[in-house]
């Protein structure tokens, strides 16, 4: 199917960029960064309709953007970016962040360990990780908090609080987005049910598409940047993908329900209830931003604790240390200043299944990364490659890029196409050790359910969103 035969008409602007002209209630156009082959399949995937719906949000500026891994979500597409002008009635939409607030990726690199040295001990390492990484329903967490007051500290202090309590080293925080703690968190905006869900899950993977993967650096595209990030050819790394667990989901649920009821007060009409939103500069908007920051801090502490458990296993089994390459979220709304029509504006940038990608020289980067840009971590589908990218100047989507491979098959279709046990055998035949959560959960994450991550990343680079630094290949997977 070509671009102009779709239910949502697309205008091809370049080999990597398509445009949806403004129509109906759209306030801005839609812009889809993709190649023809990566465009969502009409009929099966309604994400382009969702790009159109997002373009109706009050205060949206620039365009409603879709990254090359865009796929059908609820409300916002997954792989969507939308910025609203805070000082011109721009809204914040919890659906534009997603239920799993600050879901993200953390990459650790093992000092002096390459794949050849690991091979003999891979099975023992995976068995230990299998035991050390809690995942799935009711399986507990790495960190047993003393009670609600300690959870309050996690919500306020994020990874920084975890490090202060001995779960990591201060150097970790320099390699976390926002130094590991997002300012403005308010425990008072986090409901009782969210607290209950959060008490026993700090340091747990969850399920769905979350994972911990042992990887090897397969290729370096830019050795200067890779060196600054702390990556070398053949090096063993660990990628952790997870978020704010039940607490984040409950915060999103509570605030979407509240906004769904109060939008009338702001005379906001939307084509999809899951886009429920209020002005950023309103009591409800402030309440959500404060609760979202608390959930983001929870997510960062969660990944910090999983990193600590990983480091312990690597030290015990292999006697090696691990340093943090970076920790970045891909479900967030952030207040950022960007130039719009020639003047700087305060924007609320929603990235739902999209990653911030700061260019070299950006003031928010730590000193040791300022010359090279921000590491962007792109997990591939299970059993396929992952990427480390960096930001580039003049990014056309408010310093954003893709976040993963992007689904093309439903979980249902994926689970029907292969049995989890068969998939495990296939992966192990390719030399990838697998420790699964459930057989169907494993089957639902079969690589064929996703777009080709190599093509997604090439399209993101072609669209001027980022630049490749390193490609990683899997060695072992612990599946949530």
């Amino acid at each position: 199917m070509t671009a102009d035969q779709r239910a949502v008409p697309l205008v091809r602007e370049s080999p990597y960029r398509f445009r949806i002209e403004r129509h109906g209630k759209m306030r801005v156009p839609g812009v889809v960064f993709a190649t023809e082959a990566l465009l969502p399949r009409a009929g099966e995937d309604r994400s382009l309709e969702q790009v159109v719906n997002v373009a109706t949000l009050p205060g949206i500026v620039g365009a409603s953007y879709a990254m090359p891994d865009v796929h059908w979500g609820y409300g916002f597409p997954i792989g969507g970016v939308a910025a609203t002008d805070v000082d011109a009635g721009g809204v914040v939409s919890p659906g534009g962040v997603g239920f799993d607030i600050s879901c993200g990726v953390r990459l650790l690199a093992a000092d002096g360990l390459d794949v050849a040295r690991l091979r003999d001990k891979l099975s023992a390492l995976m068995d230990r990780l299998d035991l050390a990484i809690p995942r799935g329903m009711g399986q507990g967490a790495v960190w047993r908090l003393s009670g609600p007051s300690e959870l309050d500290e996690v919500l306020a202090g994020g990874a920084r609080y975890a490090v202060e309590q001995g779960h990591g080293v201060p150097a970790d925080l320099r390699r976390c987005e926002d130094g590991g703690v997002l300012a403005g968190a308010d425990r008072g905006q986090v409901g009782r049910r969210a607290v209950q869900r959060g008490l026993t899950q700090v340091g747990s993977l969850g399920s769905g598409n979350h994972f911990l993967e042992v990887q090897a650096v397969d290729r370096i595209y830019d050795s200067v940047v890779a060196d600054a990030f702390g990556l070398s050819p053949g090096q063993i790394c660990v990628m952790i993908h997870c978020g704010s667990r039940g607490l984040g989901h409950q915060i999103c649920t509570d605030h979407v329900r509240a906004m769904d009821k109060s939008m009338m007060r702001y005379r906001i009409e939307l084509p999809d209830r899951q886009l429920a939103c209020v002005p950023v500069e309103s009591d409800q908007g402030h309440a959500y931003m404060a609760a979202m920051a608390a959930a983001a801090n929870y997510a960062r502490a969660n990944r910090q604790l999983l990193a600590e458990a990983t480091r312990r296993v690597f030290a015990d089994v292999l006697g090696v240390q691990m340093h943090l390459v970076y920790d970045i979220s891909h479900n967030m709304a952030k207040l950022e200043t960007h130039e719009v029509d020639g003047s700087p504006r305060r924007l609320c940038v929603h990235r739902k299944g999209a990653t911030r990608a700061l260019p070299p020289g950006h003031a928010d980067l730590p000193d040791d990364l300022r010359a090279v840009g921000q590491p962007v971590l792109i997990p591939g589908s299970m059993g396929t490659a992952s990427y480390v990218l960096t930001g580039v100047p003049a990014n056309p989507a408010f310093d954003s890029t893709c976040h993963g491979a992007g689904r093309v098959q439903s979980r249902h279709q994926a689970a029907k196409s292969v049995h989890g046990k068969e998939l495990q055998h296939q992966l192990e035949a390719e030399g990838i050790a697998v420790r699964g959560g459930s057989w169907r959960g494993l089957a639902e994450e079969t690589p064929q359910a996703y777009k080709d991550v190599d093509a997604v990343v090439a399209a993101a680079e072609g669209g001027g969103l980022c630049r490749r630094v390193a490609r990683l290949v899997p060695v072992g997977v612990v599946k949530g």
Partner: protein
Amino acid sequence: MSTESGHRLEPHTADTRVRAWAPTREQCIAEAVAALVESFAQLRPGGEPGEPAEFDVLPGPPDELLIAVLDEIIYLIDTTGKVPSSAQVMADDGGLRVLLELAGRDRIEVIGPVPKAVTLHGLEFSGDERGWSCRVILDV
């Protein structure tokens, strides 16, 4: 609409979509609960009877009643690690009374990702004296 009761899981790219139908509003909600559970867990036969639990839902339009019940079930699963092995939903003064039996880990085989939230996207719940049906997407 249908005079029979049932439920099934339908394809959705990233998450789990459930569809349920039944002669009454309350039975339809109970079918949606069963679908939610079946989306990630299988109950092993036999064993101890489930632990009873109950909760009330305040009066509201049908879609809010459905959402409130599913929200509560997800909350219970996440905070207790137990799963409803049966759900009875009764009309109660405009709202609902929900009676559950919760099965512990010894009776549950987790077969897929656990639902974490109920979305409002594409939510459908309607019916009349001829029967009720609903469609809801769950975030996993």
